[in-house]
Every structure is written in structure tokens, then in C-alpha cells.
């Protein structure tokens, strides 16, 4: 198993960050996510699952050596996300986006969504 953290990751400590949209992780434990850390991933959208109980962004991140890794990024449910302006078209396959996540504690390729900007640097969701 490749445990090398991609060079493109920027880890920042965010002790009391104000989060634009925390996923409503009501239905399961979120002990797997490290809420004290934020990781920034620059990548390409593979797919966006607009579903209950959570929406999922599949993001392909390429490191400096050209190797790619697919991240599973957990978001909220469509009801709450839609009230914050999200649509199932907010992420489209092939979109270049930069996403902040609370990473999984065990270093696996996933995390809880914090925020995202598109290739033009505009915060998603576009209103």
C-alpha cells in the first residue's frame, strides 16, 4: 500500500477554523476524520455523487512525479447542501478544483469536505 503523501498536499493546522460548510455528519461517527487538520488538494473531478446520507466528491490528485491517487471526499446530504446553494451540477467530471478537507486520521485517501474553489479561484458553490 502506498502511504506516501502526495507532494501537492499542503497541511495546515486549523485549531478553530470557521468552516464554510461542514458536512452534516449526523448519521455516523466522524472519528475517522482529523478535524484539527486541513489538507488542500488540487485535482480533477472524477465524479460527484449527489446522494443520501452523504454526497461524495471523487477527486483525482496527481503528485509531482505524475502518480495519481483518487480521493473520496464526504459532503452533506442534498437537502442541506441545496439550501446552501449546492446543486448536483456544482462539480462536473473534468473540472479542475482545489478542495480543503479534514483528512482521514489513518492517512487513507479520503476526508470530510471543508471548502472548494474552481479553476478561476471562485468559491463553490457558484451562486
Amino acid at each position, binding site marked *: *500500500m502506498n*502511504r506516501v503523501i502526495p507532494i501537492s498536499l499542503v497541511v495546515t493546522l486549523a485549531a*478553530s477554523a470557521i468552516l464554510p460548510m461542514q458536512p*452534516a*455528519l*449526523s*448519521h*455516523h*461517527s*466522524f*472519528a*475517522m476524520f482529523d*478535524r484539527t487538520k486541513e489538507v488542500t488538494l488540487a485535482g480533477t473531478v472524477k*465524479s460527484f*455523487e449527489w*446522494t*443520501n*446520507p*452523504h454526497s*461524495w466528491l*471523487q477527486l483525482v490528485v496527481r503528485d509531482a512525479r505524475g502518480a495519481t491517487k*483518487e480521493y*473520496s471526499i*464526504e459532503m452533506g*446530504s*442534498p*437537502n*442541506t447542501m*441545496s*439550501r446552501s446553494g449546492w446543486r448536483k451540477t456544482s462539480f462536473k467530471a473534468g473540472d479542475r478544483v482545489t478542495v480543503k478537507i479534514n483528512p*482521514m486520521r*489513518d*492517512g*487513507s*485517501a*479520503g476526508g470530510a469536505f471543508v471548502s472548494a474553489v474552481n479553476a478561476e479561484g471562485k468559491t463553490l458553490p457558484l451562486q
Partner: protein
Amino acid sequence: MLSKTKIAAIVLVSSLAALPVQAQMPDWTGVWTLVGGTLYDRTTADPPDARAGDPGARQHPPYKPEWEEKYKRNIAAVAADRFPDPITMCGVPVGFPRVMQVVDGYEFVNTPKQTWILTENGPNVVRVYTDGREHLSDDLIWPTYTGDSVGHWEGDTLVFTTIGLRGENGTIIDRTGAIISDQARGLTRLRKREDGMMEAQITIEDPVALTRPWTVTKTYRKLPGDVRIMDYACAENNRNPVDPVTGKTYTLGPDGKPIDMDAQNK
């Protein structure tokens, strides 16, 4: 024999007599959302900004020593991601009083003989009979997640009691691991405040687990605009299944296989 005119008059008077009952009920229409997160008793949250589910996060219910120890064991299990929270199993109701503090939308529906508290998340229903009936009799009632609720109106405040809870075997108050016994009884005062917020003041009396009544106030704000309640079911595309043996929550990739390192290394 009554004439048709007299019958019509009686029907009309009867209808009018029924009207004031409905007119007296407060207008709680709209979609509401919980304020302040899902840690149940925020006045005793420890640390004060704790979210339910944070490792070590807790509150301070007035537990008897034995129940304080049970709670501490649950807190440790939450921190280790080994807490058997029933709602992670998809399809299990969150139960009372947790049903009063879930995320997503709430509707509070008043009808002449019942009030329904509907949660978008879950979904869950608290059905409160206000037609004067008593709780389920001793030869009918059994331990359930949401319990049995009956109440009455005191002005614009709905006052209801809830009994028949599952207790340790399923009544989880929040993800800090707080629990109460099957002898717990809820007294809820639900009203719309003058500032437009809905407020539920919930007192839990539990002679088994608590040293004194435990009162917590939850508030809800009205979502602006014409908000639509949407379908929510945890079983729809659950990529966070819980290992029924260990209680560990896994994270699945889009192919349905765990992405967790320890699952891959098994």
C-alpha cells in the same frame, strides 16, 4: 321529528363550536432547523465548544456514580471509534430525546387532536396526542425508541410527557455517548417564542440514572423562503457502514470497498 332547517342549524352550530379549537392552535408552519449542534446539553459541554463525536467531548448530566462510570466508558468508546451508536445502522430511529436535536429540517404540525414533530433527517416522527387520552396502559406499553407521548395545550405551549423508552438498550442521547435508563420520563414544553424561535424545554426524570431532573432547552430557527423537505434515508447510498462486531465505522470508495488503511491491510 326535527325539521331540515333545525338539523341544518344544529350542524352549523356544531361546526362553529369546533372552529375555535383549531383557531386557538399556534401557527408553527414552515421548516425549522436546530440551533447549536447535536451535543445535547450545551450548558455543560466539556470543552465548551465541543461537538458531539469529538474525541473526549462530553457533557455533565446529573448522573448517579454508576451511570457516570457507564458514560465514561462510552466517552472512551467514542474516542476509539468503537461506540455502538444505533443510528449508524441505517433505519433505526434516533429516539427520544435525541429526535429533538437532529440536523436538517423540522416541521411542527398542529392538528386538533395531535401534534406531529417531523424530522427530515432520519426520518422520524414524534406523535403527541392532545385529545385527552392517557399513555399506553401498563399491559400495552413496551420499550421503544421514540416512546409514547401524550400532551395538552397550556395557552400557546404544548406540554407533553414521553414514556416507554428503550433505555440503555437503545436510548442514546447524543454521540458523546450519553444514555438514560428505561425508567426515564420526558416532560417537554414546546412553544414559539416572541422572537420567532421555536423552543423545546425538555426535562428528563430518571430515578435509575439521575440524581435529579435534567432540563435542557433546544431552539430551532425558521429557514427563510419556501423551503422544501426532501427525502432522506441513510440506507440510500451509505458509504460509512459500521462493523457490527467492533463498532468501527468504515469509509467505502465508489467501488464499495473500504478505503481505510487498516481494512486494506487485513
